[in-house]
């Protein structure tokens, strides 16, 4: 059995296949806690977790908070609007000040890619990445893998299409890093202005020239949100045109395998990247993803607490 020795989880790129399998196995067995009446185990009693979110988030922050509480840790949320960041404090200073309060884990979301690596060199506690710029979002990658594994019982040999704004998507990067390690093949589609050059070098990744090519006979279709808040104004003419070429609807979903599953990291722009028929349809696993998110984050918190200082 593999062991998990990391004190931080910053990117799925840093984890081995065996470590990912261990996190997924732990998450599977953590789900039992979420389905019973007393949804709490005493495992992380006395541990303090700080959720430091420099970017807005409902799903991920709430999910990490619930995960910590179900493991009996004390969780504290810090949001940018009421933190010192708006008063000009640097990330390093904020971290050192938080560290003086003796947290065991800092869960951080930050707009700058790689800021977690910087932070982990400054502080001794565990760092978990809840999303950094356009780099990675490892908990989303893991919960996507768990949701796919639930459906197919495996991750190897699957065709996974990822459609949308790949350039700005940390979800896409974590999905690619994780799923290719587990043996899936990735097919990407999106407007050329939103396709990062050289993305094929990440492994078993094919860049497709059309949406049809990507989702043809796919087992899994992952749709991404257009991140208008990160883009300049020039990447696409308008959302209607985008929707026509890269939106998933009851017609083009037929290109994928009949039992293909559809996922989305949320929040969804209904009618843009996905039509409501698809979001609420039988192939959609969107809410299952959210449910698995809590278990996956419990597994991450549990394993980093047993990690060694690097």
């Amino acid at each position, binding site marked *: *059995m593999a*062991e*998990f*020795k990391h004190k931080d989880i910053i990117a799925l790129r840093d984890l081995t296949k065996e470590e990912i399998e*261990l996190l997924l*196995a*732990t998450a*599977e*067995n*953590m789900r*039992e*806690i979420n389905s*019973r*009446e*007393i949804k*709490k*185990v*005493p*495992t992380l009693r006395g541990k303090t977790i700080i959720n430091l979110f420099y970017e807005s988030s409902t799903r991920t922050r709430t999910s990490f908070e619930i995960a910590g509480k179900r*493991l009996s840790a004390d969780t504290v949320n810090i949001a940018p609007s009421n933190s010192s960041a708006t008063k000009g404090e640097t990330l390093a200073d904020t971290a050192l000040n938080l560290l003086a309060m003796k947290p065991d884990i800092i869960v951080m979301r930050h707009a700058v890619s790689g800021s977690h690596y910087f932070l982990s060199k400054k502080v001794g506690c565990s760092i978990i990445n809840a999303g950094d710029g356009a780099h990675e979002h490892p908990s989303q990658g893991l919960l996507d893998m768990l949701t796919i594994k639930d459906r197919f019982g495996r991750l190897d040999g699957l065709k996974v299409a990822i459609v949308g704004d790949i350039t700005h998507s940390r979800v896409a990067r974590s999905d690619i890093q994780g799923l290719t390690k587990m043996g899936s093949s990735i097919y990407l589609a999106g407007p050329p202005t939103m396709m990062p050059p050289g993305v094929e070098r990440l492994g078993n990744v094919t860049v497709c020239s059309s949406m049809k090519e990507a989702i043809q006979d796919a087992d899994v279709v992952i749709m991404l949100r257009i991140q208008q808040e990160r883009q300049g104004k020039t990447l696409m003419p308008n959302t209607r045109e985008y929707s026509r070429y890269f939106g998933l609807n009851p017609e083009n979903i037929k290109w994928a395998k009949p039992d293909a599953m559809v996922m989305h990291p949320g929040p969804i722009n209904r009618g843009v990247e996905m039509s409501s028929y698809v979001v609420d349809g039988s192939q959609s696993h969107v809410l299952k993803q959210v449910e698995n998110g809590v278990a996956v984050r419990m*597994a991450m918190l*549990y*394993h980093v*607490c*047993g*990690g*060694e200082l690097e």
Partner: protein
Amino acid sequence: MTATLIRTVILDNSGIRRALTRISHEILEKNKGLSDLVLVGIQSGGAYLAREISNCLELIEGERVPFGSVDITLYRDDIKQQAPHKSVGKTDIAFSLEGKRVVLVDDVLFTGRTIRAAMDALMDHGRPKIIQLAVLIDRGHRELPIRADFVGRNVPTSLKENVAVIFDEQQQPREVVLEK
């Protein structure tokens, strides 16, 4: 150089069968039948034995006794000393424990810390009417005030020795060995 272990079989397959049959009869006697009775085995050895005892009880009474399994990893009292953390096993209790007579099953009773953790886990699944403890081997050296209600065999040991119940690939108990 690895030290050579001396392995002695202290209970063979038929010995284990006889012990489990006797435990099953004692469970029935003490609980006056099967009503409200459920079995919960501690992962992994205890879970296999709980299934065996459930089969024994069915042979005797002609009625199925529900059995489940509990993993105690998340309830251990030494979790802070563990690095790295152990993987978490499966807890599968598909029935309510509320008001039930629960027989907790483990393979080897030693310090009692595992049983303490398992009882905490059971309480989080509801409030049983009573919890009784059945073990195949009691090797002594308790560190908590816990004792078993049903014991297959008492085996006095030294702390340097180890007792293990060996299961085959079908998760059937094969033998109990003492290693020193």
